[in-house]
């Protein structure tokens, strides 16, 4: 069981894509037009800096005096570093719209 989880966790942070309709984006637009939605996903464990190791250690030992619920993250997150330019589409009422930065272009562990 553990090996399975470990294997799963090995997938590094990278750009993934999905074909979705504009309506499915949840931005309030009503359009059946389809587009390619690119997003970032994956593990960032190998990108840990001394900051992350130290923070994790001090959180555990209570050296920072923070409670258990504290949200300070001790590992990098897989996030877009750049976004795609505008995407334009025609909605179901035949009106054109342009949305900015709706899809990722590059990912990084930040």
């Amino acid at each position, binding site marked *: 069981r553990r090996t399975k989880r470990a294997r799963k966790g090995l997938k590094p942070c990278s750009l993934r894509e999905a*074909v979705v309709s504009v309506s499915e984006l949840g931005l309030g637009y009503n359009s*059946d*037009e*389809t*587009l*390619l939605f690119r997003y970032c996903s994956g593990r960032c464990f190998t990108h840990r800096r001394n900051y992350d190791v130290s923070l994790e250690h001090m959180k555990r030992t209570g050296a920072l005096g923070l409670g258990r619920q504290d949200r300070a993250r001790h590992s990098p997150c897989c996030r877009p570093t750049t976004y795609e*330019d*505008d*995407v*334009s*589409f*025609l909605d179901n009422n*035949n009106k*054109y*719209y*342009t949305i900015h930065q709706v899809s990722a272009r590059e990912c990084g562990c930040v």
Partner: protein
Amino acid sequence: MMFMSILGYLFLFDKTISSSASSSALSASGTHGWRTPVDCVKASDMCNQSPQCSWRYRIMRQCLVGRDRNTMLASKDCQDALEVLQESPLYDCRCKRGMKKELQCLQNYWSIHMGLTEGEEFYETSPYEPMTIQHSDVFRLASIISGIDSTTAKGNQCPDQSKPCNSCLDAAKACNLNDTCKKQRSYYISTCNKEMPGQSVAPSATRAEPCNRKRCHKALRQFFDRVQTEYSYRMLFCPCQDTACAERRRQTIVPSCAFEEKVKPNCLELRKTCRSDPLCRSRLADFHMNCQTTPHSITNCPNENYQACLASYIGLIGSDMTPNYVDASHTNITISPWCTCRGSGNQEEECEKFLRDFRENTCLRNSIQAFGYGPETDSFPKPVPVTPSLSPDVELVSLSEPSVNHNDIKPGDDACVFSTCANLENGPKCNLSNDYMCKAEQTLMERTTRKDLQEEVRSFGARLNPWAAVVCLPYVLVRLAL
């Protein structure tokens, strides 16, 4: 390899020109019929290398500016210059669509050819090289991309029956999944859809322009220049079976900015505007040359070349003469530039003739339909007319007279019937019992009148194999009779 040999060829050509006497050089390039025409940028360079030619060329350009061009042109100096230039490479030079320095090339072309035409001719010679690509290639490509083999499922563009059929929506999807197409499309849409800023300073008299038309046109030209034709053609010429699809097709070029204007100018006025711009003038001449309805050909097109007609139609988009679908009709395609023949005065006839080349152009219409439905549409038997002889067991009355209550036909029912027909080769999927409804398709079909149904049957016949249409008919007729 090809490029290299052309370069080498031109180099050699140059050599001969500069080494021989200038006068013989002038006539050398004009008279050889076997030679493919030089492009006009090159021809102009060649002319400028010879003192005699460049001198005449300069005179000629001066003849063509000025306000009373016709009196200027009639003068001896201008006539002499023209005579010499007719022997020069400039005389039969041509331009390539989308070439480097295209505008310069076209300017050079018209600097000679405007002088050649006595006054304004109705049709002008296209400065573009004739298109030799076999149109079937692009058509085949189109059908491969839309996921169907052109030999089997002609026109049946909607294999997915869970959604209303909209091939224009599918075309937009295909574009969005291609990075270049998506980028270029988003660029022209955002450009054409952007309200012009800074106009709100004087809100009283003039309303702010809805958009920057010039930039919009430029972005559209860029889209059609840079995006592969299999994407752009599919978006502009997608076949439609309902209004929603046809409206999307009409909206492709963002007509509110690129097409419509507050006033509709007279068509001849618009043509005049167009002819004052070398690019628009060239594209219009090219359209007239490639889309001219030719009565004695099978396709009604010059050289039976659909592809050339579509390409020159697209060439007009983004010019002053930008054409578009005039409405969202899916049964009857009408195309027009944004102009009218009102106020033509004594030129009414000429204006109507000009407008007819857009509105009632069989070649153009056939080309568009052939693109959507596959190349062999025209060799098909004509759509099967709805007549009692085809189905003797059903009365014609039930079709032509509203003797049966309209409400007897649920919106979902006919959608169901047509799905069945569209799917005949796989066997009927729809259950024809009364309580059956195609839920997903209820929204699509709002048709209640028999006339619409009849039309649907007719347009359907055009898209199906003839036998399929015949098998299909009884279903529809039975449905109507119930």
